[in-house]
């Protein structure tokens, strides 16, 4: 396959919505069979660009060039006929249908068949799987499969339409490190068949790892373009955010004589056992591990979500039994959950109500609200944690991901918590907000005398924010690395050895 031939080219494309320039004089060329990365923060215009390529949006100005043809716009039908397939974050699969049905029905529909031949359905599905050299039970309901397998099915389905270009929108968001590697292998395999892949992401490591060329956009303008070898993480961050970030580690001398904030002795529960931990105030410790290492179970147990735990748990030297969430909160534990949207936020409710959700009962009465106090708390926290809004009465879904995460964090800071548990604190948050959230967490730990436990997959995040990092495996702590010795590659290697 000749990689110098262009598959599709956008030339000086503009797109504006109600006067706002989403894309501004943007040119992008995707060559046949290349893995191209489109990098940019949330709101930079990535989605709009995808929609122009897939024919959903018509550009206000500019030309789309395919081969010798120069077009004003594409229609969705044209785009599909050209072989453009988009895999969105939600995969657009039918959760209550089987794998075989999901794979075959679109083709059946496209051929306008009135009756379903099940033999044909299975044959089509098997063929699709064979292309990817994967093996998933065809009779399973798609809804019951893990995210990574759903994604493979979405890819297999895209390939059935003679795809020439597959666009993947943030494909690694819900994947663990190992699953990302599997995905990358498959992407490389697809490439061998001459299919181009446009990888849309804001995760630096992955972009540098997989792509051959990178285009960076910011505020709808192309700010950098070139072969991947010309970029490194720092440069990419700079282009994406327009700012430079210094990465300083969090070093802390712990006074061992002081009573620890949290102590665990032989703490056991479902999914973890023999946990021994001594956590002092001002500490920010990181806990990582592979999928199934028991870290989520441990995080939830600390938040009172497991009833029958064994062993001893002490907070400020006092023995506690955390058998319910309210018990945990009473003992000063705060928990920022893994999935912000489904577990952390009340999306259609106001920013103010979201922030006050944990402290509605803090007045003298548990029925009437201390109105003045509540308003004061909400205003103070919005300012303190730097939520960018001009009106805290606006619903929380008007905020960006980073600001939403600040709302979840703020809600817990109001409880005067002693121990802050963060489960994936910056998943799906763009780099700018990420740095800001990290800074806040440090400040909180330092000034608020909090002890912070950060559960995360993002080793980079742990190395630069924690004074020590613990690796969990099969429900136990297997390794502990102090900040000064923490190296990202080293930790990644240690994790790989556990597989």
């Amino acid at each position, binding site marked *: 396959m000749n990689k110098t031939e262009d598959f599709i080219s956008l030339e000086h494309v503009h797109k504006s919505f109600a006067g706002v320039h989403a894309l501004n004089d943007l040119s992008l060329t995707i060559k046949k069979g290349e893995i191209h990365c489109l990098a940019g923060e949330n709101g930079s215009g990535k989605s709009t660009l995808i929609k122009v390529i897939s024919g959903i949006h018509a550009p206000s100005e500019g030309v789309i060039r395919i081969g010798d043809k120069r077009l004003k716009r594409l229609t969705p039908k044209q785009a599909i006929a050209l072989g453009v397939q988009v895999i969105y974050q939600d995969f657009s699969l039918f959760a209550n249908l089987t794998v075989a049905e999901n794979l075959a029905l679109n083709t059946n529909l496209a051929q306008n068949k009135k009756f379903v031949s099940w033999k044909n359905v299975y044959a089509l599905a098997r063929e699709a799987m064979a292309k990817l050299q994967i093996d998933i039970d065809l009779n399973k309901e798609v809804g019951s499969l893990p995210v990574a397998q759903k994604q493979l099915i979405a890819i297999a389905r895209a390939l059935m339409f003679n795809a020439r270009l597959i666009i993947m929108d943030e494909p690694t968001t819900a994947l663990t490190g190992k699953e990302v590697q599997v995905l990358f292998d498959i992407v490389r395999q697809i490439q061998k068949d001459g299919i181009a892949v446009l990888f849309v992401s804001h995760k630096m490591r992955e972009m540098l790892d997989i792509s051959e060329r990178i285009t960076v956009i910011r505020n709808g303008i192309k700010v950098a373009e070139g072969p991947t070898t010309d970029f490194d993480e720092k440069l990419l961050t700079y282009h994406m955010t327009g700012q430079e970030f210094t990465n300083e580690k969090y070093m802390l001398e712990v006074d061992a004589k002081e009573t620890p904030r949290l102590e665990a002795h032989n703490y056991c529960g479902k999914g973890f056992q023999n946990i021994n931990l001594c956590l002092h105030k001002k500490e920010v410790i990181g806990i990582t591990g592979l999928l199934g290492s028991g870290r989520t179970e441990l995080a939830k147990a600390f938040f009172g979500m497991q009833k029958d735990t064994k062993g001893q748990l002490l907070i400020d030297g006092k023995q506690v039994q955390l058998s319910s969430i309210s018990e945990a909160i009473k003992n000063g534990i705060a928990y920022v959950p893994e999935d912000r949207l*489904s577990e952390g936020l009340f999306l259609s*409710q106001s920013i103010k109500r979201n922030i006050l*959700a944990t402290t*509605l009962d803090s007045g003298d009465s548990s*029925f009437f*609200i201390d109105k003045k106090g509540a308003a004061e708390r909400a205003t103070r926290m919005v300012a303190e944690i730097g939520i960018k809004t001009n*009106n805290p009465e606006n619903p929380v879904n008007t905020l960006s991901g980073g600001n939403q995460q600040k709302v979840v964090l703020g809600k817990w800071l109001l409880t005067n918590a002693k121990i802050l548990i963060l489960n994936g604190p910056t998943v799906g948050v763009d780099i700018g907000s990420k740095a800001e959230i990290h800074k806040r967490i440090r400040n909180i730990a330092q000034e608020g005398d909090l002890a912070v436990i950060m559960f995360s997959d993002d080793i980079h995040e742990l190395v630069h924010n924690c004074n020590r990092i613990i690796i969990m495996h099969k429900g136990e702590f297997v390794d502990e690395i102090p900040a000064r010795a923490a190296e990202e590659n080293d930790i990644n290697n240690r994790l790989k050895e556990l597989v």
Partner: protein
Amino acid sequence: MLKNAQPNIRDFFNKNNNLLQLIAITVLIFVVMSALNPVKFLRYYNFESIAFSFPELGLLSIAMMIAMLTGGIDLSVVGIANFTAIIAGKLFQATLVGKDLPPSVTLMYVVLGIVIVLVVGALAGMLNGFLITRVGITPILATMGTGQLFVGFSLVITGGPAIVGFPEMWSMIGNEKVLGVAVPCWIFFIVATATAYILNKTSFGIKLMLIGTNAKAAVYSGIDKNGIILKGYMLTGVLSAITGIIMSGRTNAAKSDYGSSYVLQAVLVAVLAGTNPAGGYGTVFGVFIAVIGLMFLSSGLMIMRFSNFLVDFIWGAFLLLIMVVNYYNNKRRAACK
């Protein structure tokens, strides 16, 4: 960052778009009906009869809205209303009928009757809440079941026919006027204001809305989800019981199957009022406007001597129309974003 914290008019319009539209439609109905029946529609008598009849549907709709705020529904509201009224009727039959008691004693029994009605309403709501939160039955099935159960109890108690013989003081609740305003109307405004206050200004009300918006996030925020939902259904039960008092007061009778068409009407009024059936959003004021609008519509049609069946048809068509308009409005607004 907080300099512009003053909510501006634009925000208000955006947020309350459905409500403003509802008010506009109600005014429109009023104008059209006045134009079609200039003499009869604008007569004092017409408004007086509306003032006596809207509180029943109004309170049931508020009760329905509260259940919907939690993301559920309460199909047992009318069952509870009739059941509680029948219990009060039985109490009066046993104590007052055929006896010549001094007014003070009668008053005592009437007050006792009210207390019993409210307590039974709360207990009935508690049963709903228990089935939904502890047993885990879907609200629509749980309340349909208990609704039937209350109808059954009522039938067993009455044997079928209506209970009559409520004391005069009791009928005054449904038929008298105080300061020129119908008593049911007073009850409605007091109860509606109290409910609006509870929903918007108390910790219980806000928790209820938060649970309706995202139950999981509520649990993760340390909110006692089951306890709050249980109380929500108790409140629904109490509002239904108050409706029971007004209904039996107005008709001076209580029957197991009185006003059964109210159930679905209450659902529709609540939705018409902009309540989100998936939970988390709804206003008492919206319900009030929606009920008044519908009352104008039906009284206007009655005056024009439309058949009762046709009135039902027009109500249904009207509700569907509003929902279709809302759907397109919301879609257009979403597209603007």
